[in-house]
């Protein structure tokens, strides 16, 4: 055994605290270590080359690299050692940056000692390492995209254009997501529908895309390369293949209810399309508001009016089973409910509206045809107060983060308001204006320079009603004055939160979420569109608040990851899986009960002459995630996770604890 130890300075990140020369000297004395050295940046091209050259020159059999977190560069270094023929599982990384120099920068001596122990532990562990080969499994060349907003549509199109089949599942009756609700988009003021609708139509007509609307993912089993998905299609009570989208049913329907798509500012019938450009253009009967119930058909107006007889009051939910090799989650966002914003009169005064409601009022296809009107009395508001950061950057509302899009859309809305009400006045309360995007600052500057648009830096303390006006009390922190504005309408920019159901979906797919419920990526810089669950990718606002440009970019990135997976012959899995020692296993089944992934089955031995057939545990390698729960529970030490065996971990712990 010939072990080489390579210690990285990481510039000053490590070497500024830890005494690397001392580490080299002490490491070279460890058992089986034949070479130890330090280098300024091991991850750099010459750094990797140095490692490769020494492996060849000194015929190293095992390598320890003491550097940053393996989360950062494990793959980089694995590739480097593999390049010169060393099995990458004979490489061990000691994290002496995040786990040492960064956290102990004020105690360099202790840090050096800890760094040495970490290296010593890594050497102890690698001495017992075995070479491993990746596990190959067959790959289903189809993809599931969950969420039919701009993120889901973009991802689906990119994958489909690459030649693979995509199932695009959307919860509501139409594709489009929030972007379909917007009037015009910053910073170019393109009409939102004009950019989006063609993409929706393209997706619907693409020969590789199956658009499944008004449906939800009910269950997902399996792993990268081979997921089994159950999709539940809610009953539309209209047969899609027959509906021509003529709308005759809607004309005769006697039930009028608020339209969710218009945020309740417009109406719809009980049989409806959410908006005229909906894709697919198939009507949906909403049984909750229809005069009929599951048991009793009272009204048949739409049935009688429908020429092609597309309506079926007895439709049942339908389950579809599909198999895919990869999943993209693009479930988008919601806004913090307006009722949570009581200090601004949210949920109390009808003329306190959200940004999304204001988009519907500005939209030419909205309930007012693009004329801004007050919800209370339909009058055109002459003075509008915009309040940014309504809930965002505010720990009290559980959203200490910046929602990122509000500064920009508020500026846009103030400008669009001035376009439709030229003599109107707009006041914008802001904490800071964050306009860090291409041409964003220029856009905001242009809005700020408009006549009768006034930006006030400060927070609003209270909004209340006085006769038919809304009184806004705030502080202008620049002049240091308290301000009172009598407004006709108040527009809030509520915090962006993950869309309803994200948590359940994350659980189903074993994807982690951050403390606010947004889906987590593996690494923000190195693997920004991959979830921790292999084969599951992220796109759009489900991962964090973002605007359309960023969403589209991330969606294409997710698609490219999927494409590179699907262009492989087989799916490759990490060989870090559990192995059973049949001789030691007594077939007690403890691990079988404990395994969270159901990777273990209990089987009986083949016939043995004269002897009883023994029961033992068997691991399905393609299902095992290498979590190690089985290993911890086994009383006989009969099950071990490759690369992290009981002996390896014991040696590691022992090396950490013992003094020299």
């Amino acid at each position, binding site marked *: 055994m010939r072990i080489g130890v390579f210690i990285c300075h990481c510039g000053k990140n490590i070497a500024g605290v830890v005494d690397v020369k001392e580490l080299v000297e002490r490491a070279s004395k460890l058992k089986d270590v034949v070479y130890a050295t330090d280098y300024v940046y091991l991850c750099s091209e010459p750094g990797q080359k140095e490692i490769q050259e020494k492996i060849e020159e000194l015929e190293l059999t095992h390598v320890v690299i003491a550097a940053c977190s393996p989360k950062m560069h494990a793959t980089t270094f694995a590739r480097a050692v593999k390049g010169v023929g060393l099995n990458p599982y004979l490489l061990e990384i000691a994290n002496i940056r995040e786990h040492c120099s960064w956290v102990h920068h004020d105690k360099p001596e202790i840090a050096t000692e800890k760094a040495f122990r970490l290296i010593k532990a890594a050497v102890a562990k690698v001495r017992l390492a075995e070479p491993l080969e990746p596990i190959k499994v067959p790959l289903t060349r189809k993809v599931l995209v969950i969420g039919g907003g701009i993120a889901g549509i973009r991802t689906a199109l990119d994958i489909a254009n690459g030649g693979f089949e995509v199932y695009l599942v959307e919860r509501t009756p139409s594709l489009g997501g929030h972007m379909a609700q917007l009037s015009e988009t910053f910073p170019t003021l393109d009409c939102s529908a004009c950019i989006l609708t063609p993409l929706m139509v393209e997706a619907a007509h693409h020969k590789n895309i199956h658009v499944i609307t008004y449906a939800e993912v009910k269950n997902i089993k399996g792993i990268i390369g081979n997921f089994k998905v159950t999709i539940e299609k809610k009953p539309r009570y209209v047969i899609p293949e027959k509906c021509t989208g003529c709308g005759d049913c809607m004309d005769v329907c006697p039930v009028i209810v608020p339209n969710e798509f218009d945020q*309740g500012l417009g109406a719809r019938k009980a049989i409806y399309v959410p908006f005229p450009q909906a894709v697919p253009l198939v009507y949906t009967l909403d049984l909750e508001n229809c005069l009929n119930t599951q048991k009793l058909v009272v*009204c048949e107006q739409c049935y009688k009016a429908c020429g092609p007889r597309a309506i079926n009051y007895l439709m049942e939910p339908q389950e579809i089973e599909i198999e895919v090799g990869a999943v993209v989650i693009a479930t988008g966002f919601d806004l913090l409910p307006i009722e949570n914003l009581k200090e601004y009169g949210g949920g109390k005064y009808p003329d306190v509206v959200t940004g999304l409601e204001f988009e519907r009022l500005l939209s030419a296809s909205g309930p007012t045809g693009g004329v801004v009107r007050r919800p209370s009395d339909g009058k055109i508001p002459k003075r509008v107060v915009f309040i940014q950061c309504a809930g965002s950057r505010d720990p009290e509302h559980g959203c200490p983060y910046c929602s990122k899009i509000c500064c920009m859309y508020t500026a846009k809305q103030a400008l669009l308001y001035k376009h439709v009400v030229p003599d109107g006045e707009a006041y914008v309360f802001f904490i800071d204006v964050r306009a860090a995007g291409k041409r964003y600052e220029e856009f905001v500057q242009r809005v700020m320079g408009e006549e009768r648009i006034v930006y006030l830096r400060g927070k609003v303390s209270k909004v209340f009603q006085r006769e038919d006006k809304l009184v806004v009390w705030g502080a202008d922190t620049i002049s240091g004055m308290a301000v009172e504005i009598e407004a006709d309408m108040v527009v809030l920019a509520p915090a962006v939160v993950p869309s309803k159901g994200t948590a359940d979906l994350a659980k189903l797919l074993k994807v982690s979420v951050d403390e606010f419920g947004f889906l987590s990526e593996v690494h923000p810089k190195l693997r920004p569109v991959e979830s921790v669950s292999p084969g599951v990718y992220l796109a759009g606002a489900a991962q964090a608040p973002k605007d359309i440009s960023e969403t589209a970019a991330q969606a294409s990135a997710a698609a490219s990851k999927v494409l590179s997976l699907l262009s492989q012959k087989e799916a490759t899995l990490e060989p870090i899986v559990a192995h059973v020692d049949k001789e030691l296993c007594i077939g007690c089944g403890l691990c079988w009960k404990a395994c969270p992934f159901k990777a273990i089955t209990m089987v009986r031995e083949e016939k043995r002459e004269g002897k009883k057939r023994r029961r033992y545990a068997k691991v399905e390698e393609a299902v095992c995630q290498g979590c190690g729960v089985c290993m911890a529970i086994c009383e006989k030490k009969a099950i071990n996770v490759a690369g992290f065996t009981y002996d390896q971990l014991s040696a590691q712990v022992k090396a950490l604890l013992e003094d020299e």
Partner: protein
Amino acid sequence: MVIRKPLNLAKFKVPKGRVIVLAERCKECGLCIEYCPKQILEYSEDYNEKGFHYPVVKAGMENECIFCLFCQEICPDFAIFSEKEE
């Protein structure tokens, strides 16, 4: 919760009917009153020739019939129907 009325209600038309009751045919089975989806019917104060209370449209709900014709369909005695109002 704010109860906001949609701003474009005027654009939405619903069919309207006028309920006509043939009081003398009614035998007070009550099906129409029970099942009218808009609940616009109630029993009359007075009796018909046969001695039954027959359905009448509740005061103030004269414009609420939506012409679904369910009453017409379930009435066993053909005693109620609705006429489309244009």
